[in-house]
């Protein structure tokens, strides 16, 4: 009888665990409100342009189990793949678009674009509020 009770308990435990969504999501510790510092530089044709500004935003879960979404106050959004070590890769970006969380409170990423007409860089550093 005890054996059957044990088997029922095991089945219940397995059933509880039986969902595709992970209970402990490694993205959770990085989510929240952030202050961002943005550096933009463009070299298109003979002209050079660069600027630095600060803005606020939110990091939330992205469209799949491995991504996060940055929403700036300007409503601009950037979706990034978040790897298990905190490394970041901007989604749908075929150029050098990489970054990382240095800690659970600080992140950075760079989007670099290089074409026939010139090049463009956007470096973003975010600090959790």
């Amino acid at each position, binding site marked *: 009888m005890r054996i059957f009770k044990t088997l029922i308990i095991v089945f219940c435990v397995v059933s509880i665990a039986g969902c595709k969504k992970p209970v402990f999501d490694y993205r959770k510790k990085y989510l929240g409100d952030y202050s961002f510092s943005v550096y933009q530089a463009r070299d298109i044709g003979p002209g050079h342009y660069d600027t630095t500004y600060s803005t606020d935003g939110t990091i939330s879960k992205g469209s799949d189990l491995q991504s996060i979404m940055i929403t700036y106050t300007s409503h601009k959004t950037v979706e990034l793949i978040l790897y298990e070590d905190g*490394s970041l890769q901007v989604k749908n970006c075929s150029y050098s678009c*990489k970054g990382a969380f240095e800690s659970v409170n600080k992140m950075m990423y760079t989007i670099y674009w290089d074409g026939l007409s010139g090049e463009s860089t956007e470096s973003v550093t975010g600090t959790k509020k």
Partner: protein
Amino acid sequence: MKTKCVLFLLFILPFSSFSQDTIKNPGRKCRFSFEAGAAYKGFVKPKYISPDSYSPGDTYRDHQFDRFTRIPTFTINAGISMSVRLSKHWTFTTGLIYYLRKDVYRMDIDSVINYYKPMSFPYITGVYKYNYFYNNIEVPFMFGYRFKKLTFSFGFNTSLLSYRKTIYSYVIKAGSYPVSYETTRKTVGGFENAITIYPSIRIGYEEKISGHPVIFYLGIGISEFRWTDFYIHFQTYPFRIEIPSPETQPCFYLQAGVQIPLKF
């Protein structure tokens, strides 16, 4: 199919004499023990993970350990086990045992530089060593056959939740002209829910030391089966039960330890 039948017969074998023997041999049916041990985790198949071993799915996950080499590690365990006497010879053992299991993957720094072009900051493709520490609370499900002082056991340990600490060792690009590289490390920890099964067989020898019984055991664990997204899909017509395939690690464990029965 044949393998499944053999496994099913092995599973029901201990129950076959349950009713008669417990009546014929009344006595203490349940015994608690303190258990502690260690194991060596090794690999029979090539330790090198070829980039050709492609499986479709998540690109990063499928290729995370390409060109890495698995490193043998040691495991330690300690906890309380409970043995229930099913018959004169058969016992069923379960319990709660803490296990510290390790997984280590390593690649030459030169290979990381050649194949993955490290970034100027710690980035996942610049990793040259993964050091995983799994802190598991495991539940054993073992059937044992006792013959005189020897006990032959078979079954598995299962883990539903673990605290995983990972130490990532990176190569980073330190300078462009001239090109130079340096190394750095990052530690990341967090809880992880994954169902992992560790099948094993054991042989135990009971000896009395200062009048107190002590069981010394040796065991072999074969492979690990791990479900990171576990679900059971039932379908009534046509009847079907679907369980996703586990990630299988072709390793072996050589275990040794001791069990000390507790008196209450």
